């Protein structure tokens, strides 16, 4: 089948929105609303936070300055959106066959009718995955909680900011070694979760909207622990702890755990391994400028330009993360 003649297109502002929005908003965390999202951040956004003890009763007509104890004080956290760009070159031959098969078989009703849009959507899905991982672990290494050896370096993720504010965290449980699906006091996932909930600030413990964020691997370990599969006896005589519990059929081959001690368990795709977080989604922010005019998308089919059977996809947008109040977070992370 002869190749179709594809026109070159460059889109800016509102015209680029379908492509850029699809690339950013398709991220697992953003699409499911696991964190709060600001879609019109030009460069920076100020996140107000309230700190203090209580609001004093209004029993007189006097105005008391904020310097007095008991007054409500304000703090702020600045969310900075970093300018990002996507430069991808796709071999048309690699995708054309897949696209044509979908068109012929009508396997996917949402597949675009033209190959150029299909390529753009393919690149957008890859960009969405990259946004997802950077959102959580951008410039963060989960092996030791360092900030300079991270796999994803497009922009600082939420765990990067958590480590930056480690001195102000509500609870910072540092553990050594990776999580395991047993009752080990230093590595067991159940042990860590119990410590996370037990040591969280009382305001977080009583927050009905607080969630436990963990990676999908950690969720897998949790399911194993709940099912009793991961309980490996050190030796045949070890009958302590969960080792004597045996298998729990409801967690074997069935749905994964969705809650722990009353808190919803959420496993975003980009959450780093060996980390646990107990927080309200309104403490975690992702900002982008997709609703502004400062976005751009270009789809260049170079078949008729240079002769290369490739399509280049170019996107420009901004993205960034920030936590509002470290004191409202309880975390368990691996530090070595």
């Amino acid at each position, binding site marked *: 089948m002869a190749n179709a003649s594809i026109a070159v297109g460059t889109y800016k502002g509102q015209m680029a929105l379908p492509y850029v929005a699809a690339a950013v*908003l*398709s991220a697992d965390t953003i*699409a499911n609303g696991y964190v709060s999202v600001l879609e019109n951040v030009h460069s920076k956004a100020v996140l107000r936070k309230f700190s203090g003890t209580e609001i004093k009763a209004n029993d007189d007509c006097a105005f008391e300055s904020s310097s007095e104890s008991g007054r409500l004080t304000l703090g702020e956290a600045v969310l900075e959106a970093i300018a990002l760009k996507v430069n991808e070159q796709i071999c048309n031959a690699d995708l054309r066959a897949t696209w044509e098969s979908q068109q012929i078989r009508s396997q996917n009703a949402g597949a675009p009718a033209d190959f150029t849009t299909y390529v753009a959507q393919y690149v957008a899905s890859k960009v969405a995955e990259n946004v997802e991982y950077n959102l959580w672990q951008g410039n963060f290494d989960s092996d030791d909680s360092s900030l300079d050896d991270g796999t994803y370096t497009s922009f600082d993720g939420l765990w990067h900011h958590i480590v930056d504010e480690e001195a102000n965290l509500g609870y910072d449980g540092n553990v050594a070694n990776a999580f395991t699906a047993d009752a080990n006091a230093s590595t067991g996932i159940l042990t860590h979760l119990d410590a996370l909930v037990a040591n969280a600030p009382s305001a977080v413990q009583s927050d009905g909207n607080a969630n436990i964020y963990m990676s999908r691997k950690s969720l897998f370990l949790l399911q194993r622990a709940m099912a009793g599969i991961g309980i490996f006896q050190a030796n045949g005589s070890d009958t302590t702890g969960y080792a004597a519990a045996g298998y729990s059929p409801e967690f074997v081959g069935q749905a994964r755990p969705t809650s722990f001690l009353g808190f919803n368990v959420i496993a975003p795709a980009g959450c780093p391994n060996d980390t646990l977080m107990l927080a309200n989604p309104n403490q975690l922010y992702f900002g982008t400028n997709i609703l502004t005019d400062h976005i751009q998308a270009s789809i260049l089919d170079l078949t008729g330009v240079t002769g290369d059977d490739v399509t280049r996809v170019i996107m420009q947008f901004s993205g960034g993360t920030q936590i509002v109040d470290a004191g409202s977070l309880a975390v368990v992370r691996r530090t070595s």
Partner: protein
Amino acid sequence: MNITERVQEVFNRFNVNLEVTEKTRTEMAEAALDNGTVIYTDAEAFAEGVEAFIINDEGERIPLPAGDYTFADGTVIVVGEGGVVQSVTAPEVEEAPAEAPAEVAELAEEDEEKKKEEMNYVTREEVEEMVMAAIQKYMDPKEEEEKEMEEEKEEDKEKMSSQLVEELSSIKAELSAIKKQAASTGLKHKAPSVKPEPVNLKNLNTQERVQAIHNQFSK
């Protein structure tokens, strides 16, 4: 205050002085026929050669037509051309008792007085009636005005009712014409358009989300 006093008060207000006088015709002789008609003559009595006539309401003398006429007392006169009496035949006189001539004289005097009264053009009662009418007119003008207003209202009511009747009849005519018209086709039922359900991104994989968001923002 009786009517006489009210009348006198009105007279005093408008300086009206009325006098009732009785005029009698002493020069003419008159007689009543058996049918009650009164005939007259310039002579002292009805005799041969005198003219007999009657007086109409306008006071005009009309000569009697030729013929025989019988008086109430039985006297018969024969009238020729021009109302001239040709003969007078007195009735049979019967012997009356001694008191009869006195009674006859009294009756004659009474008849004469009656005749005089009947000969008056305007009687006292008639004057009183006219005065009362004038009094009513000037004493209570409001009643007149109210009567006139009521009459006008009644006339207006009659006009309005006639107008309403005309309008009602025209409305009925229009209604009957409308009823005779063919029914309209009426409203056409339009099936409600199917609203696209919002896409739940939570149940989609990344590729499907990209397509859904791209399609949403491409609209």
